[in-house]
């Protein structure tokens, strides 16, 4: 079909272009220099992102670990109406192949990934829409020194990735534990030291943050940040008198604060508590560890108070939640290692036919959601160093020349 010519003022061309998927825009970079540079302006990037946000164009990304092949990978799920979250594409990140990295995000369409191998401190920021990634420089934070002791291990504890809107900067914060050994005899010192490091993308550097007197836990569903603040769970007190609170860190003023205690019914050791962001608030999802008919309580923090937002009674045959979708629908993992979707308004539990390929790695299944964005991270394109999206067994993307290409059209989703 021939496209006719149109005389359209520039502002309207921008209006139209800002509604295109990222893949189209990347392709249209070569149309003319002006278009290419205009896609990089903060105004266009922001307009494009807000269009996606306004239309709630969420894209699910499933993280899985193939226990047989010993490979970690991410899967893009379809959001087409009748495709039932079909897996569209599998992505292997070359710098985290054999471990299942910790993932935070998405923040403006960006993810932050951290190696989960003990002692490995590799971190990367990734934009799955533009396929740009950046491996962060090594941390330059000084480890405290003690006479007669050597710092042997630096172990990652937990972290968060969020946008500091006051300084127009993306930041990554992480808690590490330092293990020391006696320099002469190599015996481990019983006392660990905790440090907090903050990376700024704008400065491309790390710095130390004064450590709060808490050791946070990284049990969150999908994302643990909202409006420039990061959240983790902290547990104080001894069993069975544990108290759960939320530790928060404001990326802009770089300060910690603590929420009131969450009063929930049940024993801490028999309850799972996941921090999450839900409908513009921070909260926790509380559910029992045992049993396969699980009930879920969602508590939300409103200023200084905890309120129970809602409960989902008794979903049969599920093991753990993966994250909320639109309209309060909840993704979960069932006892057959399949991803299911529960709709509380109809009480319907839909099996999505996505296997999580797991034998022993149930805890390595996670779900993340992102909105497409053009945000640049001064990184490099996926294809330059590593081919990330590929067939297992065939690294080439060459089109077989025996097949006629009639009326080529790109599928930009």
């Amino acid at each position, binding site marked *: 079909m021939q*496209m*006719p*010519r*149109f*005389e*359209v*003022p520039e*502002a*309207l*061309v921008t*209006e*139209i*272009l800002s*509604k*295109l*998927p990222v893949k*189209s825009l*990347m*392709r*249209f*970079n*070569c*149309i*003319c*220099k002006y*278009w290419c540079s205009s896609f990089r302006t903060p105004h266009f990037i922001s307009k494009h992102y807000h269009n996606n946000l306004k239309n709630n164009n969420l894209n699910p990304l499933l993280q899985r670990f*193939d226990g047989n*092949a010993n490979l970690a990978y991410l899967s893009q799920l*379809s959001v*087409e109406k009748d495709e039932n979250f*079909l*897996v*569209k*594409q*599998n992505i292997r990140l070359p710098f985290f192949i054999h471990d299942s990295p910790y993932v935070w995000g998405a923040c403006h369409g960006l993810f932050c990934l951290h190696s989960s191998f003990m002692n490995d401190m590799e971190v990367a920021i990734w934009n799955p829409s533009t396929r740009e990634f950046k491996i962060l420089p090594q941390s330059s934070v000084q480890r405290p020194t003690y006479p007669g002791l050597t710092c042997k291990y630096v172990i990652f504890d937990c972290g968060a990735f969020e946008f500091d809107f006051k300084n127009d900067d993306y930041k990554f914060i992480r808690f590490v534990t330092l293990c020391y050994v006696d320099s002469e005899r190599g015996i481990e010192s019983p006392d660990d030291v905790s440090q907090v490091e903050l990376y700024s993308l704008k400065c491309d550097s790390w710095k130390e943050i004064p450590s709060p007197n808490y050791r946070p836990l990284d049990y969150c569903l999908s994302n643990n940040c909202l409006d420039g603040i990061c959240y983790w769970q902290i547990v104080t007190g001894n069993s069975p008198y544990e108290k759960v609170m939320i530790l928060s860190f404001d990326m802009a003023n770089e300060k910690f604060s603590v929420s009131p205690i969450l009063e929930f019914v049940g024993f801490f050791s028999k309850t799972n508590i996941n921090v999450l962001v839900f409908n513009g608030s921070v909260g926790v999802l509380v559910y029992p560890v045992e049993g396969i008919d699980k009930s879920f309580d969602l508590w939300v923090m409103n200023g200084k108070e905890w309120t129970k937002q809602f409960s989902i009674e008794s979903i049969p045959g599920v093991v753990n939640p993966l994250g909320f979708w639109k309209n309060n629908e909840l993704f979960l993992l069932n006892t057959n290692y399949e991803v299911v979707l529960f709709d509380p308004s109809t009480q319907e539990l839909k099996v999505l*036919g996505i296997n999580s*390929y797991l034998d022993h790695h149930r805890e390595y299944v996670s779900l993340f959601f992102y909105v497409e964005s053009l945000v640049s991270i001064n990184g490099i*394109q996926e*294809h330059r160093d590593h081919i990330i*999206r*590929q*067939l*297992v*067994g*065939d690294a*080439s*993307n060459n*089109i*077989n020349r*025996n*097949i*006629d*290409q*009639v009326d*080529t*059209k*790109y*599928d*930009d*989703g």
Partner: protein
Amino acid sequence: MGSTSTKIKLRTSDQKVFEVEKAVAVQSQTIKYIYENGCPDSVIHVHSVSGDILSKILDYCKKHVNSAAGKEDISPEELYEWDANFVKVDQNTLFDLILAANCLKIESLLDLTCQTVANMIKGKRPEEIRTTFNIKNDYTIEAEEAVRRENKWAFDMLGGVGTMVIEELADDTMSKCVTNAKSRVCVIAANQIVMMRSISKLANKKSIDVYKQPQNPTTPRIKESVKQINVGTGFIELFFHFKCKM
């Protein structure tokens, strides 16, 4: 002030006069501003909009006002359908609607019409876009090549609809898979073994039939030998979407 059935008169570029309810007319921020800051009884001139286009726009505004006010019993899905049909017009009309929605400052209509054009152009090749928007290519050949290479993946016809995970084939006959326009999977292997299955069936399939590609591409494909392939470990990506001669 004024009753709910206040009417506003609008005169178009081709001298047609429309009398519309105020609630409908003020969907346009431009008309609203003129009405509130000018003389409320006089006729408002909408210079750059023709009668035909204004008529269509007023239909849109009326539908949306009525649905929001609850005057019409229409669900969000039905309104969405109505909007989709509203923009099923010829392209000249569509662009006239965009220009008018912009000039009259009707945000939801501007969003709707621009999204419609975006959906029309998103799968196109750069050459077609240049023609449509009458853009001169100011790259040198080398510079354009460099930009294309940098964004190579966006030119890949791989990915999107029709991709999915299927179980890996047991042996090394697999080199790549493609789907054709009819959403049937066509797998082309290094030694020309081809298999076909519809995508939805493949999702839960444990084994796949194998067909052999004849040497002469014009002879119809025949099920030369059916070989059951067993499920292996791991996975492969399935690629997409272009028409292949069956």
